[in-house]
């Protein structure tokens, strides 16, 4: 807090000062440490304290502490307590000889665990214990040994339910950060691949890993990501969604500027392109930055299946995205303002079917669009068996009944259904949700201005889109700014891997070349 902030804008003082200002040393006298740690964890009955003696009854006192349920008890029993308490007594040298050098001997030749470290401050001990490690104090030694014993009930990796693919790997991220980084590492065996770990959340101390390839990713992006994450000052981070919202440039837009995915292959692919991946502990959703609208219209499968098929599918997605945004608005515009555009035969049948409908087109459209939104929301939250029932009730009963009751016209039901299906064809859920909001915006404009209103709405949306930047990369890239190289892998085309020799240019990678010497010989 600087001098200048003392006036009106002084931020309220936090009730609890999170910042550890006085860090206490670990004392050589083990009793002090024991009282301190017991005092700190008073009231937490899941913390285990175990005191034992090494080298016979008159030997040196040792003390360990861990949290029940987060640590590997078998490991502690077999490889910490066993060697220290039993085996050390049976082999030479004798306890009496090494009394003074016990700590080093214990570290170097008694503890048969691979991963441990030493800390000098009590606060580090607390954090380690809270993270599932085990703290070992030795009498007469002013450091604590932290043994890596993290083990807690974790979900096995399974296929992500929101991003299923037909062709491609089936593994998905889980809630444990370490497993997730391993899933990425398995795909990137490169020494230049970096996993930078930070802790976010004053109370939750959640691990956040920033992953990138050092000589590909744009340095400025990496720095910016790190800066923004370090700037976060929040009590707890429950899910990567917290981080996502806290590092995004724009908060009030329906378009996400950070991509989320449950698939390690997507993250690895993005990292190879020069993007930065962010993993958050306790969240199976990884974040990818920078991201463009383009990337949201792609699925990981696109890169595994044949290019001609993919190009076709991407084209379909583009059309379905357009339908998801403009269809109901266009319907309103056509019916209420410009029926002349519709061919006369179709117009007759439409107006015949609309004859019994007492409402203007826009009321009809809003009623049906809202109904389908209710259905969708209800279907997501309900348990799976009931969810399908809701689908039947909603789709058949309400649709059919509403038409028969003369509240909406059959053509409206078709428009709503096509819109809904199209919006599900967009691979990314969050962008599809953004498109839904825009759809309602266009419907309002269409009720005022007809087709002209739909165009005004599209222009307004586009003005918004060209102004968004995700970590310095324009959202509409590679279309705007236009990058001919990147059109090879864009919203409507994907060429075969043989022709995608360079990384996406709009990400400004340090190393642009993907395929150094040509694969053309096999032509």
């Amino acid at each position, binding site marked *: 807090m600087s001098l200048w902030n003392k006036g009106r804008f002084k931020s309220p003082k936090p009730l609890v000062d999170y910042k550890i200002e006085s860090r206490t040393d670990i004392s050589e006298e083990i009793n002090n440490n024991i009282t301190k740690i017991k005092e700190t964890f008073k009231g937490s009955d899941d913390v285990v304290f175990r005191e034992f003696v090494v080298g016979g009854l008159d030997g040196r006192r040792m003390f360990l502490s861990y949290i029940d349920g987060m640590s590997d008890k078998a490991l502690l029993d077999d490889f910490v307590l066993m060697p220290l308490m039993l085996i050390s007594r049976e082999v030479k040298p004798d306890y009496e000889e090494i009394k003074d050098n016990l700590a080093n001997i214990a570290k170097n030749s008694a503890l048969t665990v691979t991963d441990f470290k030493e800390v000098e401050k009590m606060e580090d001990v607390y954090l380690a214990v809270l993270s599932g490690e085990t703290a070992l104090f030795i009498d007469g030694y002013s450091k604590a040994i932290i043994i890596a014993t993290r083990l807690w009930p974790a979900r096995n990796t399974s296929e992500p339910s929101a991003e299923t693919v037909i062709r491609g790997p089936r593994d998905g991220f889980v809630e444990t950060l370490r497993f997730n980084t391993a899933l990425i590492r398995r795909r990137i065996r490169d020494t230049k691949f970096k996993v930078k770990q930070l802790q976010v959340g004053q109370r939750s101390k959640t691990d956040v890993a920033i992953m990138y390839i050092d000589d590909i990713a*744009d340095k*400025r*992006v990496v720095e910016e990501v790190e800066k923004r994450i370090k700037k976060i000052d929040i009590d707890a981070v429950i899910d990567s969604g917290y981080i996502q919202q806290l590092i995004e440039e724009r908060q009030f837009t329906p378009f996400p500027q950070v991509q989320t995915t449950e698939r390690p292959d997507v993250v690895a692919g993005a990292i190879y392109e020069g993007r930065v991946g962010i993993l958050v502990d306790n969240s199976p959703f990884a974040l990818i930055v*920078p991201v463009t609208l383009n990337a949201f219209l792609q699925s990981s499968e696109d890169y595994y299946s044949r290019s001609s098929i993919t190009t076709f599918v991407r084209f379909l997605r583009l059309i379905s995205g357009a339908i998801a945004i403009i269809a109901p608005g266009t319907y309103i*515009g056509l019916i209420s*303002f*410009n029926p*002349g*555009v*519709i*061919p*006369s035969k179709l*117009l007759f049948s439409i107006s015949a079917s609309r004859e019994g409908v007492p409402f203007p087109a826009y009321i009809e459209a809003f009623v049906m669009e809202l109904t389908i939104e209710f259905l969708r929301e209800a279907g997501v939250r309900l348990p799976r068996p009931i969810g399908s029932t809701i689908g039947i009730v909603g789709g058949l009963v309400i649709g059919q009944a509403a038409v028969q009751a003369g509240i909406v016209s059959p053509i409206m039901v078709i428009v709503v259904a096509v819109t809904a299906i199209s919006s599900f064809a967009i691979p990314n859920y969050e962008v599809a949700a953004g498109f839904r909001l825009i759809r309602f915006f266009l419907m309002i404009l269409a009720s005022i*201005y*007809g*087709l*002209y209103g*739909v*165009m*005004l709405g*599209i*222009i*307004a949306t*586009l*003005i918004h*889109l*060209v*102004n968004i930047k995700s*970590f*310095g*990369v*324009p959202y*509409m*890239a590679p*279309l*705007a*700014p*236009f990058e001919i190289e990147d059109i090879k892998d864009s919203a409507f085309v994907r060429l075969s891997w043989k022709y995608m020799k360079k990384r996406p240019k*709009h*990400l*400004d990678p340090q190393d642009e070349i993907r395929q150094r010497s040509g694969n053309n010989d096999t032509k």
Partner: protein
Amino acid sequence: MTPNDDKISNIQLCVLVFNIVLGIGILTLPASLTKAAENDGWILCIISGLLCILSIYFMCYVGNKYAEYGLVGTLKKLFGGFVGTALAIPIILYYIFFCSVEVRLFAETAKLYLLPNTSLEIIILPLIILAVLLSRTGIESIARFFESITPFIFFLIFVLITVTIPKSDYSNIRPFLGTPLTKLIKGISVSIFSYAGFEILLLIFPYLRTPKKAFKFSSAGLIIIIVFYVFADIQCLAKFGVKETESFIYPTISLIRASQVPGGFIERLEGLLLALWVTSVFTTLVGLLFSLSVVLSDVLKHKKPKHIVSMFIPIIYIVALWGDSVAELFELSDKLMNTLGLYSIGILPLLMFLFSLFRKRDVKKSEG
């Protein structure tokens, strides 16, 4: 990461020129061309297009020399402080009227074909507000907007071409060069202003990343439009013949109306295309508003053009609602183009070019 320097690339310049020039003019152009030169209208189109490229060359020559000064700065350098500022004033007026006429013309057509029961005021307002919103965000966003809209415009043009080609009689274009030369030369003054909009080159140079290549790319943008205009004119003649084309107010719309969509899944294509054409009018408007704000902020010595552009919402709104009818509007736009337009497209670039030639000599002398 694209550099965030408020500058645009070459392709963006090309797209910028293309989108600003292409606007409402195409809807009326074939009629005025045919009035001026009958079935040689398209030749007129090419000649005046080439003249415009000459003007672009002048602008680029001067612009390259004084790349960092901007229009007003360059004028001051060439003609001295007071005269330079005074020379910029007509440009400001020109932009205000051009914007207003563009908006009004579009609103009139939209009212005619799309929203017969909505009043002009209501149609105009959102268009101006959106245009101001985009112009406020700076040249980078404007260029990106234009880039993302361009494939769409090309798609529209493609539809236009494929739809209008069947059942046309190209013998209508013959005989070539049947019009007397004097009539052709007179006609140039009509057709040259259909390319109005590229004057943005007068003031765009401080915003260019590589000003050296500006001429190549901006004239490329203009050439696409020449081709498109020639096509529209020939197509109108082929469909309607000279007499009929002359009599239309909006021959291009009539052309689309006369064509049928194969399969007939859309009955009246012109309604739909006109709605889609909003984007093109919008881009013209944004380009003009941006130019206006840049010139005016330079004249007023204000650092941020974006502050200035907002206050044009009421001004353009009022000016746009000035006349009572389309006929009056055409009269006004003819007057405007023949005075202010001629000044900013022809006279001023030529003056600047000549003066900059002299300056060059001066500099050399002082160096020698």
